[in-house]
């Protein structure tokens, strides 16, 4: 294999090393990675072994909370017209059940699994941005709990988890309930995106040397695809929640038909996110299945490459099927036909994975332990759900089944079979890695059977009630329609399911003992790196990987790794460190210095959550203060970044020396910024789509843009901004006596130019007489301007930040990472500004 980075693969032959490790090396490693000692250190902890457990715990807490809501719903529906819950209460409860399950449980749970497992599985010491995961977690927990608490005040959203306008506009939802959803869920999505950035950079840049892409554990593939899907899909819902909130708060008519808006715009934006969302939820669970089924059957996964391709295909095709949620909205026949075909196609790669699992079980010898039972049970339920999915992909059938209990049945079969059961399998399988005691096998089997039977008793009758005509989201139903008995049966089943979850919670309390010094070991005989003996520092030394199943294929691996005979057997700089490797061949590139815990990101998370939630209750001054404090905390956190010190290269074992500072396209920070800009770019693209879509619905409402003569000023200033930013980092690298100062001033000037361009463009539009609350053109133009304005605002923070760093002597030509990353941002801002300006100025035309 040719080298990707120039690294000489012969160097791998030096490992495992044979000489004895120095005295105290292991102790120093342990000390540097020590866990929380004082009480507040439990909150500031950033090691993925802690954050991962917290994250899974929080996700399961929301699972239980949303599950209790479900039991309340089923109690209400057990009999026709019971008065157990008032109409408004039920409407809030069913909205919260869906919202909490989808946003606060499903995506965070699989993201949490990634946070907990990936570093161990990849042979890294931690995720590449530990403080970012801590920030994401605390924002999620604080925000999620406050959001859930809205139920206790009767302020929970009541528009259904997909919150269709116009029902959710201020006219028909005058209270702040809908705002809780829009602002609360909006920023939880930010949390998910932060996690996705971590996972992409983690999977591609922090693998053990030699772990080429064809030896990448299947779970890591699943998480990589999952994270890429989040990057592309979540911006759509971020945009749509922003737009609806703007409509509610300021009257900008995106979805209000009276002023040119269209409720269908919401549906397109929401489902462009919403359909990939369910595959986002499914793929990591499928990756977990592909990992633990081989372990349970004690044989290698059959069809590894097919499974990887299938996951890629699922991810890709899932972006093309969103309108199958809209078959009844009166779309043109040709669109309906296309979406029907694509929806059928997306089931094929899922089937490939299912048969790969069956083939693997056949190739090995299944042991009926708890993870195995949950895996097989989940497979069966998932296949049933997939089959009803094919049924509703057939348009005439969907015209009957849509918005009925048949769909409720379908969605629970695929989500519970495709995600919840694999999650429980994963919990039973991987608990021994994090806990000093495994969970009880005896209880586990009871829990499995209770859950499996309970699930089917609950949801199977719903297929029938749906076909009998019972719609979704009804707080009650009239008697004498034949719906009574199936509903009662469903309620009984739901309590069985609830009992199983309760037993699981009890077993967790009895047996789950994390954060100790010893873990329970490789109870189920798994093949991955996570089963090597490890501590808070993950592996003692980072091995050279030669196979997809290292623990099975390299028998002395555990002993050698523990003895420190591979890469990075200690902490060469006396700090937390991990290795950064190249994306395809995992060749060592540099040593990443990792941070120690502090409190800035925790406060930043709390103030971020505070900003959004206090905005919801309309205490504007307090909310702004919270926002300012959040920005301050984040800037303090950033101030500590990019502070190189110590030797330029370090021995990472076997005499191999790696640099300690890398900037440019190989560096993890650069990657993180690029991914963030892709997210932003997607939001801008979806906003441009909204502009064109609304124009196509009401071209009669479009008035002429500002005079073409004012356009060159905007474009010129934007060009200056882009060029200035790029020149700034180039100037820095020239390493002349005054390079640092020139670079800093150029960057500041670039950000000011971007600000000037924004001011010019915004005033041009204002002077043309267009107002944002007047028409859909106004709304979309000013939305695009507002998005650009946000970026300009951030740039205007970055310019002085860079200048300040120079004034404090923190800028040097040898260490250009901050400048590169800021330059990327400012240049992107310029390009985004130019693209959106050209669209609103030149489309559909320049004159009246």
């Amino acid at each position, binding site marked *: 294999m040719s080298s990707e980075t120039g690294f000489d693969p012969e160097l791998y032959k030096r490992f495992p090393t044979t000489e004895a490790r120095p005295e105290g090396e292991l102790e120093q490693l342990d000390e540097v990675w020590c866990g929380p000692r004082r009480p507040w250190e439990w909150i500031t902890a950033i090691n993925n072994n802690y954050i991962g457990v917290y994250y899974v715990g929080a996700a399961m807490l929301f699972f239980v909370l949303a599950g209790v809501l479900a039991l309340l719903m089923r109690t209400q529906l057990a*009999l026709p017209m019971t008065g157990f819950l008032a109409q408004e209460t039920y409407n809030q409860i069913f909205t919260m059940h869906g919202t909490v399950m989808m946003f606060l449980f499903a995506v965070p749970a699989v993201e949490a699994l990634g946070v907990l497992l990936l570093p161990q599985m990849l042979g890294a010491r931690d995720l590449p941005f530990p403080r970012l995961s801590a920030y994401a977690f605390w924002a999620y927990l604080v925000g999620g709990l406050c959001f859930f608490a809205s139920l206790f005040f009767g302020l929970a959203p009541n528009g259904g988890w997909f919150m269709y306008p116009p029902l959710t506009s201020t006219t028909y939802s005058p209270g702040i309930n809908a705002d809780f959803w829009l602002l609360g869920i909006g920023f939880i999505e930010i949390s998910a995106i932060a996690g996705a950035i971590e996972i992409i950079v983690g999977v591609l840049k922090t693998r053990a040397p030699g772990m080429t892409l064809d030896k990448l554990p299947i779970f890591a593939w699943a998480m990589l695809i999952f994270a890429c899907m989040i990057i592309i899909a979540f911006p759509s819902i971020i945009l749509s929640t922003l737009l609806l909130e703007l409509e509610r708060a300021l009257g900008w008519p995106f979805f209000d038909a009276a002023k040119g808006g269209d409720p269908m715009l919401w549906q397109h934006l929401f489902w462009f996110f919403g359909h990939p969302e369910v595959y986002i939820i499914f793929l990591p669970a499928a990756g977990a299945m592909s990992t633990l089924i081989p372990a349970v059957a004690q044989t290698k996964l059959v069809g590894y490459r097919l499974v990887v391709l299938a996951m890629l295909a699922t991810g890709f095709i899932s972006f093309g099927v969103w309108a199958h949620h809209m078959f009844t909205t009166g779309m043109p026949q040709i669109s309906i036909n296309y979406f029907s075909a694509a929806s059928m196609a997306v089931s094929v790669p899922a089937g490939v994975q299912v048969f790969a699992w069956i083939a693997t079980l056949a190739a090995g010898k299944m042991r009926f332990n708890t993870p195995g039972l949950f895996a097989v049970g989940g497979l069966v339920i998932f296949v049933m759900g997939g089959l009803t999915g094919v049924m509703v992909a057939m348009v005439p059938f969907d015209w009957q089944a849509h918005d009925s209990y048949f769909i409720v049945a379908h969605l629970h079969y695929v989500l519970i079979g495709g995600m919840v059961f694999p999650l429980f399998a994963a919990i039973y399988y991987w608990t021994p890695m994090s806990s000093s005691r495994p969970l009880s096998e005896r209880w586990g089997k009871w829990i499995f059977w209770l859950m499996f039977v309970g699930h089917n008793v609950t949801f199977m009758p719903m297929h029938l009630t749906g076909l009998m005509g019972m719609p979704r989201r009804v707080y009650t139903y009239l008697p004498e329609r034949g719906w009574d008995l199936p509903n009662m049966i469903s309620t009984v089943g739901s309590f069985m399911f609830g009992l199983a979850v309760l037993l699981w919670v009890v077993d967790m309390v009895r047996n789950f003992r994390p954060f100790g010094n010893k873990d329970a070991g490789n109870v189920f005989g798994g093949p991955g790196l996570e089963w090597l003996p490890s501590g808070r520092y993950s592996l003692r030394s980072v091995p050279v990987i030669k196979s997809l199943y290292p623990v099975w294929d390299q028998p002395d691996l555990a002993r050698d790794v523990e003895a420190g005979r591979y890469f990075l057997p200690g902490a060469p700089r006396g700090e937390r460190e991990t290795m950064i490797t190249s994306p395809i061949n995992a060749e060592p590139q540099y040593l990443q210095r990792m941070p120690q815990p502090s409190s800035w990101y925790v406060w930043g998370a709390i103030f971020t959550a505070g900003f959004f939630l206090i905005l919801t209750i309309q205490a504007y001054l307090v909310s702004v203060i919270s926002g300012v404090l959040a920005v301050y905390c984040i800037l303090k956190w950033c101030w500590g970044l990019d502070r190189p010190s110590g030797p330029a290269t370090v021995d990472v074992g076997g005499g191999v020396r790696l640099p300690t500072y890398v900037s440019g396209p190989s560096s993890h920070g650069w990657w993180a910024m690029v991914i963030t800009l892709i997210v932003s770019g997607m939001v801008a693209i979806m906003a441009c789509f909204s502009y064109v879509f609304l124009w196509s619905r009401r071209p009669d409402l479009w008035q002429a843009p500002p005079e073409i003569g004012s356009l060159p000023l905007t474009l010129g200033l934007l060009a200056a901004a882009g060029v200035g930013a790029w020149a700034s980092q180039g100037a820095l690298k020239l390493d002349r006596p005054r390079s640092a100062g020139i670079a800093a001033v150029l960057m500041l000037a670039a950000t000011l130019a971007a600000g000037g361009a924004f001011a010019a463009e915004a005033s041009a539009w204002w002077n043309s007489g267009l107002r944002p609350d007047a028409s859909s053109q106004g709304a979309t133009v000013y939305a695009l301007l507002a998005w650009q304005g946000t970026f300009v605002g951030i740039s205007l923070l970055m310019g002085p930040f860079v200048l300040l760093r120079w004034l404090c002597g923190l800028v040097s030509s040898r260490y250009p990472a901050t400048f590169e990353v800021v330059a990327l941002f400012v240049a992107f801002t310029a390009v985004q500004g130019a693209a959106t300006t050209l669209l609103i100025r030149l489309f559909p035309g320049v004159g009246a």
Partner: protein
Amino acid sequence: MGFPTTGEAMGRRAMAGALALALCACVDKADLPRPMVQADPAAGLAVIEDVGCAACHKIPGVAWPEGRSGSNLAGFGARPLIAGRLPNQPDVLIRWLIDAPSMDPGTAMPPMPLTQDQARDVAAYLYTLDED
């Protein structure tokens, strides 16, 4: 003067007990459902649901609606009066169900589309409602 012997005391207690029981029997007799022959309470409930009496009245055995315009009919069987005015007897009740305004012009309850037999069955059902 002598204290009552044990035997006398017991005898007095027995008399008191028997008297109490007899009184209870009298009280029970007054609360017995009014006798109705050839009337089917179950059929009456079905008529109540078909005709929609619960649109105005909360009626045990009917989950919905729970109307508030008319009185709550729980315990109707034990009440002495219909609508606070008329004696609660089967023949009176049947006439009331079919044409209430003719017996009380101020009532909000309109004449209901019931045959004699249906009204009998409804009355029989209402008389089973003797618990509050």
